[in-house]
């Protein structure tokens, strides 16, 4: 089943003049220095919005309105954090709600995306190509346009002002994640699967013992996207949730700007607190992106 493609690397070519180890070391050191310079420059650009959020969150109410805005506040107002979080809006309650919805949705996403992705990547069926095209098709339809019919459907089911419209659909696969996982599953060498099949392994076993362990970085990426997506979910929450007790953090932030249109300092303070879980999760997840998913037993490739 292995087909050599045009893209298969052909690396044999006359060896270049070999460098002495001293030269090689110097080249390596120069490359590393270059990488650091580029990374630090990029970091500056990428860190800017966050720094700006932090400085805005520390400004006084009066400085908030100044135009043109100054980057640094003249005095630091850490009380903005307490004022924003425990002001007129119950953000602790919102936090609990957000955690519940996000945890259930993430679990649903993970279960319901792995199986179809494996099927689309490695199984053959007459309807396979058609269903895959259909799934990609659903990604191409602007979400706004199914919003109203979807609302009518969930209203008829009596699901408005419950978490069901936010959680239940998450258990039935997300096209984008299925497509992403499928792409990763297609890069796993076919020999590994064939060998397992010859040993009599079931599809479940192949999925559990070969595909998933070798796709850990992709799984981590999907968990991250699912977490961020559900944590920041705004549009659907605004449509389906009515009672303030049931609100999530993004909805709270939205209300905040409605109530105090100009108090960006408090809004930014709460935003920073709300994004901390994502930053921590990302820091943990990125560790799976470390070189070393080694594929053993496939010599000569």
């Amino acid at each position, binding site marked *: 089943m292995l087909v050599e493609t045009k893209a298969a690397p052909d690396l044999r070519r006359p060896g270049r003049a070999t460098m002495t180890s001293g030269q090689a070391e110097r080249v390596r050191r120069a490359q*590393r220095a270059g990488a650091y310079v580029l990374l630090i420059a990029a970091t500056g650009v990428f860190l800017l*919005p966050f720094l700006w959020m932090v400085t805005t969150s520390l400004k006084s109410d009066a400085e908030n309105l100044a135009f043109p805005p100054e980057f640094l506040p003249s005095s630091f107002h850490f009380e903005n954090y307490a004022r924003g979080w425990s002001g007129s809006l119950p953000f602790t309650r919102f936090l609990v709600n957000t955690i519940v919805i996000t945890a259930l949705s993430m679990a649903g996403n993970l279960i*319901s995306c792995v199986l179809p992705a494996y099927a689309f990547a490695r199984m*053959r069926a007459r309807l396979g190509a058609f269903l895959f095209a259909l799934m990609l098709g659903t990604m191409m339809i602007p979400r706004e346009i199914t919003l109203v019919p979807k609302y009518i459907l969930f209203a008829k089911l009596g699901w408005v002002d419950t978490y069901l419209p936010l959680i239940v659909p998450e258990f*039935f696969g997300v096209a984008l994640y299925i497509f992403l996982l499928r792409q990763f599953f297609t890069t796993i060498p076919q020999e590994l699967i064939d060998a397992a099949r010859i040993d009599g392994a079931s599809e479940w076993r192949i999925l559990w013992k070969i595909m998933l362990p070798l796709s850990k970085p992709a799984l981590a990426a999907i968990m991250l996207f699912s977490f961020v997506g559900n944590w920041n979910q705004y549009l659907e929450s605004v449509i389906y949730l009515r009672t303030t007790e049931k609100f999530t953090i993004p909805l709270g932030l939205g209300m905040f700007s409605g109530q105090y249109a100009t108090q960006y300092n408090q809004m930014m303070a709460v935003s920073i607190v709300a*994004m901390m879980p994502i930053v921590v999760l990302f820091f943990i997840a990125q560790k799976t*992106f470390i070189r070393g998913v080694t594929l053993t037993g496939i010599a000569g490739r």
Partner: protein
Amino acid sequence: MSGVAAVLSRRGQHTLARREARRFHLFVSPWVIGFVLFTGGPILASIAISFTHWNLLRSPTWAGLANYQKMVNDPEFWDSIGNTFYFGLGAVSLGVVFTFALALLLNQPLRFQGLFRTVMYLPSVVSGVATALLWLNILHPDFGLINKLLALVGVSGPPWLGSTEWAMPALILMSVWGAGNTIVIYLAGLQGIPKTLYEAAEIDGASWWRRFWSVTVPMMSPVIFFNVVTGFIASIQAYTLILIMTEGGPANSTMVLGLYIYRQAFVFFDMGYAAALSWAMFLIVIVVTLIQFGLARRWVHYEFH
């Protein structure tokens, strides 16, 4: 005898294929059930809506092809398609190259690697409102950071969001900057390349550039392909940041199709026309995606055929 064996083995293959198909259906069932329950119905409904006049308040009335006729004769619609392609091509080509380079950098075994990666992801986490406010400040013609920096080297910067020429490039720059998810996908992809390939290439004396083109790119091609396809879909549909930043102006120069649909649906409450426009967008996206799948045969390298 051999004939019987051939028939038997053919039948054996047949049942094997049948069993594989059955398993396929079992495995894809979560998505298929979800499609039937939650997606298929609303999609069919939106097709029906595109043949009606509907303002959400009164019940819809039959319009026949009126919405589609209106669309064909609507110059703003055609302009918005041009703008959509400008934005999509700019954002995807710049984004795919820039984020790939960043991912390669972030994949080097350097110190503080985790910290660097986290920082690059930050823009994707910062709330949309904060992002928009920040960029409005950065792009401000007189006080903005970019024009201040340009002034230092003696260049008087353009009015960015205030000019029909520079508003779109500014939005494209912004979109590239918030592409943390693309970096994550590339990083995940880079982990899947067997080290043995690089070792073999090194033994053969392949230079860094050669290893990049002959190992990294072909091995990453399914992932690059994913980013190109989904990047295009997302940028053709994108409108929220544009809505906050420019509202389609100045002089409709950043009025992309997604924003035009949003306007028809939720500003003018012309749901029928918005639905018809959405199907036009769907058609555009599907044609672009089919072309990409066609081209993929030439450059995407899969392990399985």
